[in-house]
């Protein structure tokens, strides 16, 4: 890991600690922020790789390490130093009980959580949905808006 990446992760860990402390005092969210299923605190480093990315505007590297914040049956949230955009799709790789798992996640929200940290949330999607979204990049000029 490079020195810069290590510094990023340290910053992320500090922000995550503060976010978790803040959120534990906050009432449950309403509206679109309200998740279908209970969230469980789940803080671990994960490898993230783009499946569908908004090339024109994204400054995010193709692969990066993020730190998860919480997880539910329907989605996951993590924090990261770059902006992401709602609608992008990533593959999140994590280890659970020594087993590597891959989850496909469609980003639904990205919000600043500190000076150089973004709080990013997504929902799990099927491989078929992720595949269709990735292919739509090539066929974009013909797709119906």
């Amino acid at each position, binding site marked *: 890991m490079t020195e810069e990446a290590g510094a990023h992760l340290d910053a992320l860990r500090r922000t995550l600690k503060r976010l978790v402390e803040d959120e534990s005092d906050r009432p449950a969210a309403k509206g*679109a922020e309200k998740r279908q299923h209970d969230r469980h605190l789940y803080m671990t480093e994960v490898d993230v790789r783009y499946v569908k990315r908004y090339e024109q*505007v994204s400054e995010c590297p193709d692969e990066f390490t993020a730190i998860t914040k919480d997880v539910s049956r329907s989605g996951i949230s993590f924090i990261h130093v770059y902006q992401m955009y709602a609608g992008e799709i990533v593959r999140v790789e994590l280890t659970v009980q020594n087993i590597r798992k891959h989850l496909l996640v469609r980003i639904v929200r990205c919000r*600043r959580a500190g000076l150089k940290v973004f709080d990013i949330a997504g929902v799990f999607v099927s491989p078929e949905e992720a595949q269709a979204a990735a292919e739509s990049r090539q066929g974009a000029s013909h797709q119906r808006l």
Partner: protein
Amino acid sequence: MTATRTPPPTNLRKSYVPVPVDLFADGSLLTFALYARPHGAAIGCICHSGETLDRARLDEMKEAGARVFYVDTAEHRAYQRFAEAALGNVVGRTDLSTPKKVEICYNTTRELIREAFESSNLEQMVDTHRETWVNNMVSLICSDEAALDSMVGMLSHDYYTYTHMVNVSVMVTALAYRLGHRDKDLLRQMASGGLLHDIGKTSVCPETLNKVGRLAPAEWDELKRHPDLGLQVLHSRPGIMPLELMMVHQHHEKLDGSGYPQGLLGSEITAEAQMTAVVDIYDALTSKRPYREAMLHERAVAILKEEAAAKINRDMAMAWIDTVERIRAQEHRHD
């Protein structure tokens, strides 16, 4: 700042759509029948489908007091195709003054965008109407600086999203010009970004968009998704530049981080999106909305100045206020 438009006689509304006389030029080949009602006489066909309209006929109708022509609603699609093509030639016409060209471009584009918006034909809006509008506007500005003032001065202030989108396109281009931008490509992109800035609202349910009362938290959340939805719709469209995408995605961000969707800070928000934010607020305030009457210019200026303390770019806000006040002063002098 109101567009003048003569409503059709009530007994004609069921069958005919009024269309601007000046859109028709000598030699216009029509694919629909064109009607007129000179001197308040009975409506009559002045040119059949497949025929060419000549100058003598046009002059005769104008002299007879026809301020609008009419098209049968059943042939409105054919008229729209004609209008789209005719708009492409408006700027080069020598028989029209600049304010008249501006009026035709603005009103006809607004009408075409309304049709596309209401029929959810966003492809037509993004691929066809946008290009014609942007090319016309930048050509008009670059050939005659007064065109910009004419455009800003004639904007309609109803509460429809499509009117707001065309207005913001005009205003943000005017502001960019006022701030010294002269590069045609940049002005085109700004006009385009302004036109598209609220395209995400086409995915918001109309009941929420037009609700008269206070929005419930879930409705507010839905409305606040429109910058994200706009980016999702446009990000991979050919011909849409990053600058335009950022105008769509960031126009509700605030310099102090209190905006949405991402809560960006200061220079993280592109300059073009900051300009869009200024004129977006001004047009929203001075337009009639389902939940309130249009605000007076003076009150809107006071709010813009409050916002300029921390939330929007102060220099841009002051430049916009100065632009509008100069145009208003010119209008008063002409009155």
